[in-house]
Structure formats: structure tokens, C-alpha cells
């Protein structure tokens, strides 16, 4: 089986079979990562450009590692701020890089739809590494992989995404991907950070962690951005922590031990208490490991057709 498209732009339109294929492929690559020699040859001779128009050390390193372990040649480019303000358009930047005969482009950009846009103006395979508040499909996949690893199956698994849902591409990719795999997704956060009509996506909305914790198997805790406070979306980090911070005390109300996920980097003791982040229920570091395996799977499936 193969993926139906040439690009990975988001999880919204992926079928269950496709998601299964990626997750299964990632299982084999995770085994590769356990070996003494972690490199395999499938992308030998392929060149991959990582275009990061928004700073992200973690995702970029994870992609670079995945690319190198598949024996691809890798170039990385980081530039924050909008491309327009730098004088060259995104289209020109991408076309210039493509003119150097690049096979695949991994792109991170602050603007929703940037990966779709690139897929229309260049011929290379495009992998979305996060576009604005739209999607972050490989993060969604690694979250799914990690949950599946821990719970055996995603079918009927109850997952709540906690925090700034409005601005979160991780939340959207989680919702799309997990729902397709049969999981039940809810969101919890301040009313100002829950986008309108999200119920129509089939997710339950909570505004109190106390209400949702007894109802779920896992929490995916999002990073809170201080700049949202300045825009009047929540009053203070202290208040945020008190009411929406996930702490050991609050998760004790769970019916069984909750799996704690976080896409990183963590603001310790803001959205997630330090003791919980480091507890046995936290799978945060497994997420990081799995991220490499999942990205290898995606690169492999798109790059070896």
C-alpha cells in the first residue's frame, strides 16, 4: 500500500488506512533506532531541504535526524519573520531552492496554508512541519504513535487536548488524526482560547480540568504563549496555572492513571507541573523518540515511490 498523495500537508484528509500505514512503518523504523547502527539506505541520493521560516529547534532537529538516518542529503534553512518583510517572497525562496534540484521540502511557517501554497508552486514533495494554527501533521502522528504504543489501540481511546486550542496546529492535527483512528477527542481551555464552533468537529468542550479528567485516558497539554496574555486572551500565567495548569493534585481525580503528553517545549509549572512532567505517567520523552521514527516513516513513504 502507498499514500494517496505526493505531499503530507495535514491529517484532515488522510484515510484510516493511510494513517495505519504510517504508524506501522514507524514501528519498523523505531526498531532501526534501537540498533547500534541507526542508519538505513532508502533515501540515498535524495536531497531534502528543511525550510524553517519560524524558529523551532526541536522539530528541525527531529526532521534532520530522520532524514540523515534514511541516508538523504540534507540542507537546512532557518529564517524567522515573514518572508515578505525580508524582501523575497516565499514562492521565490522555494523556487530558488528547488532550482538546486531538491527532491523533498520540509516546511515550517507561521502562516496557515503555507505548505499548501508551496505544493502548488513547486514540484518537490512537501511535508508540512507546522503551518500557523492550521496543522502539524507529524506531531499529530507522533502523538498517535505514542498513545498507541502505550494503550495498544486508539479505538475508543479518550484524549483531551488542554490549553490554547485557538492557536494550536497540534490540537487540529490531533483532532483530525485521532478521530479518524476511532479515538474520542475533547478539548479543555479558557473560553477565549477555544475556537468557535469547534463542537462541529465532533469534540466535546470543557472549561474545567476537574470535569474532564475523570472522563479521559490521556491529556495532551499544550504550551501556553505569554503573548496571548497581552492580547487579552487570559489574565495572567498565575491564574492560567491555577485553573488550567495540569498538576499531580488535579490528575489524582482520574479514574485510572492518565497518560500525560506535551509537544514541548514545556513551561514547567505553568501549563504542566514539573513533578508530573517527570512522573511515570508522562510519555513526553517517548514522544520525542517516536517523533524521529514517525518522520522517518513519512519521508520514506513519500520519498521512495
Amino acid at each position: 500500500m502507498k499514500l494517496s498523495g505526493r505531499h503530507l500537508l495535514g491529517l484532515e484528509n488522510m484515510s484510516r488506512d493511510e494513517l495505519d500505514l504510517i504508524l506501522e512503518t514507524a514501528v519498523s523504523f523505531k526498531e532501526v533506532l534501537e540498533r547500534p547502527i541507526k542508519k538505513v539506505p532508502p533515501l540515498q541520493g535524495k536531497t531534502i531541504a528543511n525550510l524553517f521560516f519560524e524558529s523551532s529547534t526541536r522539530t528541525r532537529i527531529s526532521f534532520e535526524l530522520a532524514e540523515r538516518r534514511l541516508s538523504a542529503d540534507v540542507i537546512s534553512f532557518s529564517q524567522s519573520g515573514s518572508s515578505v518583510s525580508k524582501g523575497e517572497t516565499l514562492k521565490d525562496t522555494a523556487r530558488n531552492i528547488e532550482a538546486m534540484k531538491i527532491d523533498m521540502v520540509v516546511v515550517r511557517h507561521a502562516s496557515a496554508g503555507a505548505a499548501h501554497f508551496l505544493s502548488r508552486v513547486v514540484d518537490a514533495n512537501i511535508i508540512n512541519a507546522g503551518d500557523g494554527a492550521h496543522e502539524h501533521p507529524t506531531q499529530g502522528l507522533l502523538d498517535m504513535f505514542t498513545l498507541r504504543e502505550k494503550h495498544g489501540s486508539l479505538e475508543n481511546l479518550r484524549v483531551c487536548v488542554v490549553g490554547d486550542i485557538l492557536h494550536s496546529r497540534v490540537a487540529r492535527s490531533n483532532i483530525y488524526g485521532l478521530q479518524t483512528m476511532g479515538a474520542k477527542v475533547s478539548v479543555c481551555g479558557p473560553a477565549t482560547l477555544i475556537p468557535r464552533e469547534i463542537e462541529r468537529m465532533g469534540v466535546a468542550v470543557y472549561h474545567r480540568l476537574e470535569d474532564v479528567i475523570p472522563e479521559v485516558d490521556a491529556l495532551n497539554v499544550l504550551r501556553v504563549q505569554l503573548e496571548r496574555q497581552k492580547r487579552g486572551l487570559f489574565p495572567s500565567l498565575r491564574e492560567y496555572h491555577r485553573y488550567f495548569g495540569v498538576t499531580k493534585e488535579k490528575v489524582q481525580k482520574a479514574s485510572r492513571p492518565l497518560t500525560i503528553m506535551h509537544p514541548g517545549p514545556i513551561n514547567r509549572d505553568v501549563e504542566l507541573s514539573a513533578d508530573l512532567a517527570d512522573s511515570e505517567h508522562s510519555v513526553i520523552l517517548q514522544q520525542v523518540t517516536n517523533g524521529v521514527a514517525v518522520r522517518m516513516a513519512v519521508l520514506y513513504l513519500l520519498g521512495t515511490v
Partner: protein
Amino acid sequence: MNKGTSMKIHIKGGRIVDPVSGMDEERDILVVNGIIERISSRPSVDGSYQTVDMKGNIIVPGLLDMHVHLREPGYEHKETIETGCESAREGGFTAVCCMPNTNPAIDDESVARYVRQKGQQVCDGIVEVYPIAAATKGRLGEELSPMAELAGAGAVGYSDDGSPIASAEIMRRVLEYSSMFGIPVIQHAEEPTMTMGGCINEGFVSTKSGLPGIPPVAEELMVARDLILLRYIPAAKYHVAHISTASAIELVRRAKADGLQATAEATPHHFTLTDDVTASFDTNTKMNPPLRTADDVEAVRQALKDGTIDAIATDHAPHTIDEKEVEYIEAPFGIVGLETAIGLTMTELVETGLLALDEAIAKLSTNPRRIVGLPAIKFTQGEPANMTFIDPRAKWTVDVQRFKSKSKNSPFHGRVLTGKAIGVLNNGKMYIAGV
């Protein structure tokens, strides 16, 4: 085809549809030097007349698009008064009202005069250009523009379009001062503190795509505020530009019922497309106000039907390909509209049975002329001949490359429409489209 100055034309066999007189009959029209000499069934005509066969076509009063951006002065790379008028003429318009968000803005009588005169010089003067002047200096919303002088220079409306007149105090003064001239204040209705950074309608679609939303209540709030001010200053005339939300439409409906001098226009894209199309991230779906939900589209259509919305105006907003081929959030708002207006109106409103043909024509000619204070066009002997010829059955595919507009930013490329302008006659000049 562009006939010389002194001319006698025999327009033969067309169906005249005139919303003013209620005429809907097949008649021949004789035009001599731009004046209607006679309208009759089978006039005897000597050889000095040039005959134009309009059999199967309809003849309507010359159309007015009361909301276009001609971009000159200042943004001639997008459009000029000349290319904008060519686009209008091709689309069947004999007049346009152009918005003042040029550089410099039309906030000074010299700029207003320049725009008007330039309009007379291009396209043989077949398309009349009526400037809408800025309501405030530099469209900054802080001080009143010289409204009396601007009226003297030919301005037919006051607007800071592109931006709302945000301050309640300034809006009050704009309404009061403009009321002395009987000239409407045209509001781009948007509460700006709620729309910063937004680029599509806030709702289910923006929630799914993560694109920053423009809440529909931002339009409703501004219309509500303005109508409250209008109740306080009933001598003023207030017009809502490109109304797009069901809730704002309802406010206008009530204000009209209460006898306020409030009018509204809607664009073809707001009665045709929903925000679903923005999911493609195609920047030709980005305009302000944004495309709204199916319920809003239905409300726009019903309001066109019941008269709450008086006029159809395109908000013709040219941008170059390079300006539009960027990230969605970075792309400028707006699409071109002059050359698809008749096709969309006929296809979406007339073919569907929502509006009778004469009702649709009233929205594109009679009503906008009344709103901006231009005299009604009459199909009567001795009156200036100002008319648009439409083939109501022409099936055609929109091809942006064929647009006369300098810009090609349209979400309707490739769409099949029924009904097309085939020419215009005005100021003694005749133009047949697509030749």
C-alpha cells in the same frame, strides 16, 4: 468597434427592459448624436443610420457599479483609470463610482477633479467616473475631509472604504456635515478592534483551517452603531458597503422599516460563494468583508429580493499576481469584479428565479444611481442614450486572461456563467464587447 462622433444608430430588434418605466418590450431605438430620437416598433429608417442588430438581446439602462477601486493615483501597477474603465465597459457598465483609497487619497478637490477628468479622457468617455471622496482627511478617521469642496469637484459619496470610520464621534460629525449636501456616507462596516489580523470569516471554517478569523459581529456592531447615530441625525444618508452578514442585514431591514435614510449594497461574491472555498487557501478567496456562511449568503439573496439590499456593487479590487501569490495571511484583500458582475447576477439571481430581470437591472443601475444622486436613465425621446446590451442566454466560461482589467485576481476563473454584456452605448459612443 468604436464609432465616430457624429452618428446615427438604429438599434434593431432588442428587448428593452427598463425598471424605471416598467417597459419590457421589443422595440427599435434610433439614436442620433447620443440622444434618443425615437423608440418604436418598426421605424422607417433611411440609409444614413448604422444598423446594429440586437435580436435576442436585452437592452437595459446603462449600468452603474457604485463600488470600484480604480487604484489611480498611486497604485497604477494594479489598475489605472483607463484599464479600470476598459474593464467596466467590457462588463457592461457605463458608469462607476471609485473609492478614495488611492495614494494620495481622494480627500482633496484636486485629486477628485483629476479622477473625474481622467475618466472623461479614457475609453472615449463612454464610462463615466464618479469619485467617492474620503470622509476624513487621509482616510485616517480623525478630521473631516473638505466635503463641500469635494462635492463641488464631483464627489457623489463620502467613504473611508478599506477602513471603517471607526470613531463614533467622527462618524457623528461626518453624518451631520454630509447631510447638508444630501450626499451619502458609505461605510465599510467593521469594528476594527475585533478584526485585527483576521483574514477569513470567523466560524467553523476558520476553526478548521486555523486562519485568523474576522467575526461576523464586527460588521453587525458597526452597522448597529451607525444606525443608532443615524436615528439621532436623520437628515443624513447612510449606505452600507458590501454588506455580508445576516445579522447586519436584519438591522438595515428594521432601519428602513422605521423610515431612516439607510441603503445597502451587496457584491456578487457575497451572494455566490461561502467561506467553504477558503479551505483551499487560494488567496483569490480572500476579501474584506470575507466570504461568509451559507446562511449569510441566503440572507443576502433574500435581502436582494425584499429590497433591503438596494444595489449590487462589485467592490472591484485589482491586485497583481505577485501581490496575491503569497501566504494567505500576507495576501491583500479583494478580487476584480467588473467583468463577472452581469454573468453572476444573471446566473445566480435571475436564472434561479430569485429576481425578475427588471429587479436585477434595478440593482445594477436605477437604485445605485438614486443612492449616489445621479439622474435616472430614461428610455424616452430626447433623453441621452445611456444603455447596456446583454445577451441573457450567452453561456460562457470565465477566463481571467481575457479580462480587460490589468489584474486577474478572481475566484471565478473557469466558472460557467449564463448572461454576458455584449456592449454599451453612452455619451454618443458605442462599444461592442469582446471585439
